[in-house]
């Protein structure tokens, strides 16, 4: 049994932002990086399934697209318990369809029983890479999954799809399949210090990127969003702020 988990190292903007000279990207000096939260749930789910219904030789393989820097995020997955990691060497920012095209040959090569992607990334919030990848792999797809029941011998899985308002759609899907994993499906485990240290030593396979074709979009300009009327800043210390809040509330609830 093999589960491929596609993961992303996401960028987190801090307190300030500056743009590059051509105004098409954020200056990388203003970015911090982390494993995409959805992907830690996806990794945990793959590990849970391997522990519950897997056996000797079964594997959880994480795949990511990016430059050497994204290996930090991949090592977190290895530290959680993933068996192998493969990085598609690619250093530009890419739209979700392009990322799917870069992931596809690697996922294909692994012949997985299941492919997991996070529903979305916290920085891009496109919620598209997984569904696009399923299409390229010719796999059935269910997006926004909050529960999975599956055994390696079975030709289908029963999953729960989470719709707006918390409505749940119980769905049966033929397997192999690609599922996009929603937060809250499980409680991702913490890696032990020992596991983290061991993961640092693990070899990550690096592959060259396949042909990507034309990108699905091109950023022509990136900018700070217009603040509109803007939030009126409540100044001063906590006591002043609390006082102002109390006044505003009293006024608005009249």
């Amino acid at each position: 049994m093999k589960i491929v988990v596609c993961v992303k190292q996401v960028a987190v903007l801090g307190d300030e932002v500056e743009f590059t000279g051509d105004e098409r990207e954020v200056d990388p000096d203003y970015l911090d990086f982390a494993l995409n939260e959805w992907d830690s749930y996806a990794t945990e789910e793959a590990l849970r399934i391997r522990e519950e219904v897997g056996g000797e030789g079964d594997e959880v393989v994480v795949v990511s697209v990016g430059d050497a820097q994204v290996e930090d995020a991949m090592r977190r997955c290895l530290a959680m318990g993933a068996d192998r990691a493969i990085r598609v060497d690619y250093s530009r920012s890419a739209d979700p369809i392009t990322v799917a095209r870069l992931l596809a040959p690697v996922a294909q090569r692994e012949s997985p029983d299941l492919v997991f992607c996070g529903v979305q990334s916290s920085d891009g919030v496109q919620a598209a890479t997984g569904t696009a990848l399923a299409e390229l792999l010719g796999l059935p797809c269910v997006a926004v999954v909050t529960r999975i029941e599956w055994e390696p011998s079975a030709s289908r899985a029963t999953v729960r799809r989470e719709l707006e308002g918390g409505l749940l759609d119980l769905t049966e899907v033929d397997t192999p399949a690609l599922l996009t994993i929603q937060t809250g499906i499980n409680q991702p485990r913490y890696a032990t210090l020992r596991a983290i240290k061991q993961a640092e030593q693990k070899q990550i396979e690096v592959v060259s990127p396949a042909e990507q074709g034309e990108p699905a979009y091109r950023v022509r300009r990136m900018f700070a969003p217009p603040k509109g009327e803007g939030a009126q800043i409540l100044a001063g210390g906590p006591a002043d702020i609390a006082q102002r809040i109390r006044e505003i509330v009293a006024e608005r609830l009249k």
Partner: protein
Amino acid sequence: MNGTLIVTEHLRGELRELTRELVTAAQQLSGPVTLAVIARDPTEFDVNFQGVDEIVNVPLGQEEFENDVYQAALEALIADRQPHAVLLGFTVNSMGYGPAVAAKLALGFASDVHGIALEDGAVIATRSFYGGKVDAELEFPADRPVLLLVRPTAFAPAADGGNASAREFAVELPPARARHLEFEEAAAGDVDITTADFLLSVGRGIGDKEAIPQFEQLADKLGAVLSVSRPLVDAGWMPNARQVGQSGKTVKPKVYLALGISGAVQHLAGMKTSGTIIAVNTDPEAAIFNVAHFGAVADLFDVAAELEKLS
């Protein structure tokens, strides 16, 4: 290529308001606006809005959404209509097939789009990056349609009173590889947060499950109802019934006081039309400040302690 093709958003027999918003979005583009209804009985939905030039009804042999079926229907519609742009809503259903169509047909693509324009005949879309902290204008490949998933509430709803003609478009539909079995409603909780005048809403910033009682107490003292953002429900600290956001409840209280909530897109979708929004967060760039009427960059525990004293 000609005009805009919109796919009607509906769920469990109810037309979603988002469909009217897509019609408004389409007015930014050129050419006829075609509204497709893909459903068991498409004629059940009254979609004759102002700005719609043509309605195309695609009947299905089934009641509920299945992504393979909707994908086949949309691909057939695109082949038939050759639209310049295709608009879907940024919804869970559309996430299940929209990107697949884009990948299969190598279309231009972007999702969570909140602005659309036409410049020299080319579509320009605006969306946010870095968790809502920056915006960007996108260009698309020139020689093929672009498929966009549009953010709910980004456009005003189109009014009734259009006079489009409707026609039926039969599509050969494949067997679905992912099949709907049944629905489960979200559990109703002890409190209906959608009826509260004043919501005290806490997010990841409270740090720990152990902090919850303190905020329950504060809500009581303030005369507010306690609500939460998604991470607290994911962690199992609070039930879904208390959650504000796209996968929880949409609320519109007179006052929404957000403590330690960053303002993720799907959270804002659930509360941004609140009467007065007050946000407290240590991150001055938090997206919540883009919708707040009043904001304080401060530690929520310090402010909460002071609010407690005043009550």
